[in-house]
């Protein structure tokens, strides 16, 4: 975290490249990490990957409808970042949030059932893919208005500080969200009021079909924070341990000093923007996509672990088989669950 002492009072930073550039190679960090933690991170990423593959399959079969945005390729961001949070912390996400929900430990069945619009879904089928919630674990949603949740995150951070609770709010959004007014208003408030919030921008290079250079007047995006005097940095979003480390520092800063941080995680989305958008063709080439696939966050962690002798192909297969089973069960649960009843339409509009 760059928070130079010369400008400490405003937390101004001058980060340029990847924060993780200063980190040791992944192999070395993996060797130093707690093996059970690393296994958990790998399995969470795998769970998300398999879950999303299943969601795509069910979508193709017409068992999931509407708009559905998959997270494949970006798993290391949600898993690394959320692993750095405490159980009482809060999480806000955009509409591409299946991965965050699972990383936070939401029940895969309740998520899949929500995607399928079933009564057993986490929002009783009323929200669908873009509106996942589980307040019991501080998962405050899925928000399908780009940038619309950034002010909310400032609000929960404000309340935590006001109420003297050591809760940090983490807020995830895409690279295109830095261009909407709500981003700017929230950043100013967060810094002005010294709020315990970590803003994580998942820079996957595109907002739908528009590349960053056609949408943002400034790149690197994390430098947007300069205008608000907010601490900021970039991190390699395909390296789960790096994300965990950098977000972990920001979470500590927020918890101890009530200071916000802006983290730009560089990542890539392997699928189309949504299920109706082909993975490549209009706005990016297959070659570009293939190039990025070489940095697959799961493969990277797997090969690092294998190279230091911390993972065997058999152990990987075992983990994979285990998460596949969880996903199969989730899909079966969704399929067997009842549709909402017509009366459910009218419930929950107001709290009685």
């Amino acid at each position, binding site marked *: 975290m760059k928070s130079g002492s010369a400008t400490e009072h405003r937390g101004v930073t001058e980060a340029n490249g990847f924060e993780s550039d200063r980190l040791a190679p992944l192999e070395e960090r993996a060797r130093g990490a707690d093996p059970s933690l690393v296994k958990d991170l790998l399995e969470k990423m795998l769970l998300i990957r398999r879950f999303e593959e299943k969601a795509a399959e069910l979508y193709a079969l017409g068992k999931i*409808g*509407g*708009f559905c945005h998959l997270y494949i390729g970006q798993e290391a961001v949600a898993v690394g970042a959320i692993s750095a949070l405490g159980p009482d912390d809060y999480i806000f996400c955009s509409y591409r949030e299946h991965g965050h929900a699972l990383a936070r430990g939401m029940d895969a069945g309740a998520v899949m059932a929500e995607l399928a*619009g*079933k009564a057993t*879904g986490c929002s*009783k*089928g*009323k*929200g*669908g*893919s*873009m*509106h996942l919630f589980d307040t019991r674990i501080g998962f405050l949603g899925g928000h*399908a*208005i*780009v*940038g*619309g949740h950034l002010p909310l995150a400032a609000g929960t951070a404000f309340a935590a500080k006001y109420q003297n609770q050591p809760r940090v709010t983490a807020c995830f959004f895409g690279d*295109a*969200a830095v*261009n*909407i*007014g*709500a981003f700017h208003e929230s950043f100013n408030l967060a810094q002005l009021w010294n709020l315990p919030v970590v803003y994580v921008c998942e820079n996957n290079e595109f*907002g*739908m*079909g*528009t590349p960053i250079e*056609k*949408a*943002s007047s400034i790149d690197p995006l994390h430098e947007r924070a300069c205008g608000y005097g907010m601490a900021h940095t970039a991190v390699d979003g395909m390296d789960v341990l790096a994300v965990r480390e950098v977000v972990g520092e920001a979470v500590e800063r927020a918890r101890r000093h009530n200071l916000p941080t802006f983290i730009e995680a560089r990542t890539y989305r392997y699928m189309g923007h949504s299920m109706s958008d082909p993975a490549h063709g*209009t*706005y990016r080439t297959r070659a570009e996509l293939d190039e990025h696939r070489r940095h697959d966050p799961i493969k990277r962690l797997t090969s690092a672990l294998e190279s230091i002798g911390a993972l065997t192909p058999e152990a990987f297969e075992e983990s994979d088989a285990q998460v596949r089973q969880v996903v199969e069960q989730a899909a079966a649960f969704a399929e067997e669950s009842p*549709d*909402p009843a*017509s009366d*459910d*339409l*009218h419930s929950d*509009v107001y709290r009685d």
Partner: protein
Amino acid sequence: MPILTYLDAIRQGIWEEMERDPAVFLLGEDIGVYGGAFKVTAGMLEKFGAERVIDTPISESAIVGAAVGAALMGMRPVAEMQFMDFIACGFDQIANMAAKMRYRWGPAVPLVIRGPAGAGVHGGPFHSQSNEMWFVHTPGLKVTAPATAYDAKGLIKASIRDDNPVIFFEHKFLYRRIKEEVPADDYIVPLGKARVAREGDDIAVITYGAMVWTALEAAETLVKEGISLEVVDLRTLLPYDEDTVLTSARKCSKVILLHEDTRTGGMAGELAALIAEKAFEDLDGPVVRITSPDTPVPFSPPLEEFFLPNAKRLADAARKLAAY
């Protein structure tokens, strides 16, 4: 006559206006390279170039505000909202700036803001709203919501030529489902004029947007039972066509007001008040509203079906009213 979808009719209308008037330009998210989320602007970038088909950042407030500014300079911007739900992010620029510009200091604001609204595609609470009344309640704007491909083309052309800010509601469920003959030549459908979509004697069903098709479907069923519905398609909601509404109400003496928007504060309430004020003596029964309930639009397909008015609900209400 060529057969066009509702979507292609809008596209053709914009295309023709782009060819006709160099002051017309398009701006919006992913409208160029991507051709628009629903492909309404497909091919426009190739034809008219990046100067007139402008991909913007996700910045609804700046999209609308910059369009207002350009309109003040005599340009004719057509701004796309990727979904009409997101127009909320540009609301101040529409409701305070664009709508009151003329009243405050006199300039023309020839601006169109268009995009898909409405439910039926399982979009959930933020991608399905019928939010036309946010604007119908704002003097200084015009609001239109075509139901047919013919009207979609004629109304988008009229909207682009109009010197006032027009909010143009496209119904996403109709985009590719409606296919009809649309003249290849230049015509407009005037703003503020309703259309009698089907003549009938017993009950006037006054509606707009996708519900016009629902009304026509119910009319087809009921005619076999000896109940004759007249279907009025409002086409423009602000300013709306009082004469056509009152003529049909007086002719049939019974009225059903039908819309996909939720009930309280909907267009039906406005029309019911108009009819009560000006056609009270002609009525032979209570004015009936068929609308969505006062809830957000749910995602779950079966819930969404319960939410939306349909031909069966309309027909049931019409049978009751006919017997009144």
